[in-house]
């Protein structure tokens, strides 16, 4: 199979205007990936699928990743004037990386039997309306998996034919796979007519008067 740099160059030549970045992978697995821009993702995906040298027809795994806001502190040497003399002082600077949601696709070729080529797309932010283009029109195997990402991460896929919750129930509101998700105290809670009954029942818990004449009654019977 061609190297990732070659694939990147050929895809950019085939799809005018596409911006593709290579995301390195420092681990021993050595599976670097291609970061696609939203606008041309569909066209690049089609190129990857149909190009005779690549033929990545098997979209095996589609998944989401949640990256929180990150602060990376670095130690930087800064020149400063201290007591009238210029000195080099080490200062820690914090660099801020805003968080985003990510969709990762693992592609293989069943015809040419090679792979994987990993492609990923990133949303602008982690807000509720985070959107990505859907690749289900290119590979149907993404249909259920993109639904699962929508369900658990809250990424809306533009152009998905049937974007509904798939594992959680339809009325569920949060996205449980996000890193800052907090589970509710009671999953089953929903307002029901039963609440009114409970309110009424509270009346019975008010303390009864100490003497209501009942003790005299029992005394007389004795």
């Amino acid at each position, binding site marked *: 199979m061609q190297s990732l740099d070659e694939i990147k160059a050929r895809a950019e030549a085939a799809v005018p205007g596409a911006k593709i970045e290579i995301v390195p992978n*420092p681990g021993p*697995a050595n599976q670097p990936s291609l970061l696609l821009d939203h606008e041309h993702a569909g066209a690049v995906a089609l190129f990857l699928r149909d190009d005779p040298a690549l033929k990545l027809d098997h979209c095996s*795994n589609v*998944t989401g*990743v949640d990256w929180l806001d990150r602060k990376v502190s670095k130690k930087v040497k800064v020149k400063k004037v201290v007591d009238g003399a210029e000195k080099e002082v080490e200062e820690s600077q914090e660099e801020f990386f805003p968080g985003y949601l990510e969709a990762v696709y*693992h592609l293989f070729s069943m015809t040419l039997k090679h792979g994987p080529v*990993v492609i990923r797309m990133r949303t602008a932010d982690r807000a509720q309306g985070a959107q990505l283009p859907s690749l289900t029109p290119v590979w149907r*195997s993404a*249909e*259920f998996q993109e639904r699962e990402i929508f369900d658990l991460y809250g990424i809306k896929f533009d152009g998905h034919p049937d974007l509904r919750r798939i594992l959680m129930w339809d009325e569920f509101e949060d996205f449980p796979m996000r890193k800052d998700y907090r589970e509710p105290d009671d999953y089953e809670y929903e307002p029901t007519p039963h609440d009114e009954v409970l309110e009424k029942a509270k009346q019975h818990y008010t303390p009864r008067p100490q003497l209501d004449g009942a003790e005299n009654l029992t005394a007389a019977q004795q």
Partner: protein
Amino acid sequence: MSATGFHELEGAPPKAMNARIEGDLMEVSMGPQHPSTHGVFRMNVALDGEVVRKLKPVFGYLHRNHEKIGENTSYLGSMPYTDRLDYFCSMTNNWAYALSVEKLAGIEVPERAEYLRVILAELTRLQNHVSLLGFLLSDMGAWGTPLMYAFREREKILDLFESLSGSRMMCDYMRFGGCRVDAGPDWFARAQKIIDAFPRFLDEFEELIVSNEILIARTQNVGKLSAELAINAGITGPMLRASGVNYDLRKVDGYGIYPRFKFRIPLGDHGDCYDRLMLRALEMRESLGILNQAMKEIPAGPIMNPKVKVRAFKPPIGEAYGRIEGPKGELGFYLISDGGASPYRYRVRPPSFINLTVLEDLCLGHTVADVMVILGSVDIVMGEVDR
């Protein structure tokens, strides 16, 4: 009385029994508590008489967010939990997870452990396929007998698993860089006995089912899957190969030590339920071949890589996707490590979940009774679909 329509019926010409009913579609909710849905699985079916016009699978009844739990526990802590994904095939689940972590951390596995893994994975394939055939026949109305025959053989293999790992189904046998316990010579002798007796059972079982008229009528030309759709929809495993696509990860990836063994990949021709059923029967024979070779060649030696720290295991920063040919299809694990003791992202690629993508395409135009056969031939386990 005219509101009920009884009076009109008296004078009207009698309607033929097989006349087409023109009218509204009837929506039926099949499942989740249906004996043939293999667990809590539901299908919203729109019917025109008996014919399926629309089918939407509904699942998530067993959802416990396996992936979130995996992200909140140590790498090793997820190992016993992978048993619960596809609870028929805990050995292959263990292997897929161990393989991914080994890729993530760059761990090598000793030779004897690789052989043990192959032996156990092929035994798992045997018992998965044999119980699937039993279930499928049970779905078609052959109550009891074939399923009991199949379970008799499965039980022997589960006994082997129990004596090796301590548990019949929740084996938790593999570790990063090897296996947990070694098998002794008496275990191999018992396993060899079962392997030697298995072809005879297969002959008998195939004779029972292959030429059965009812089985042929119910499965041939039912639920046809074209090769193009199968590839595009990410179908893997026996279901893909029944459609004639030669793609078996044991050959393609050659993970573990599979390139050392001689075996063939059975392929289907029509992609219907009958092909899917027969393909599994043929695959079992190839598995027996691999088992016989592995039992002969297994070397002595250690079963664990001594360099792996079992406690406080922290792989380097990076990500990895590892996959194996599970009995149900491509089972993959995608892991992202941030250098900590638990994975930043832990993802399971469940074959039976993705194989359900085409369920509607397979069922359209067939009758309700065929839906059960088609679903049975897909081979799903809800523990894996819902995770």
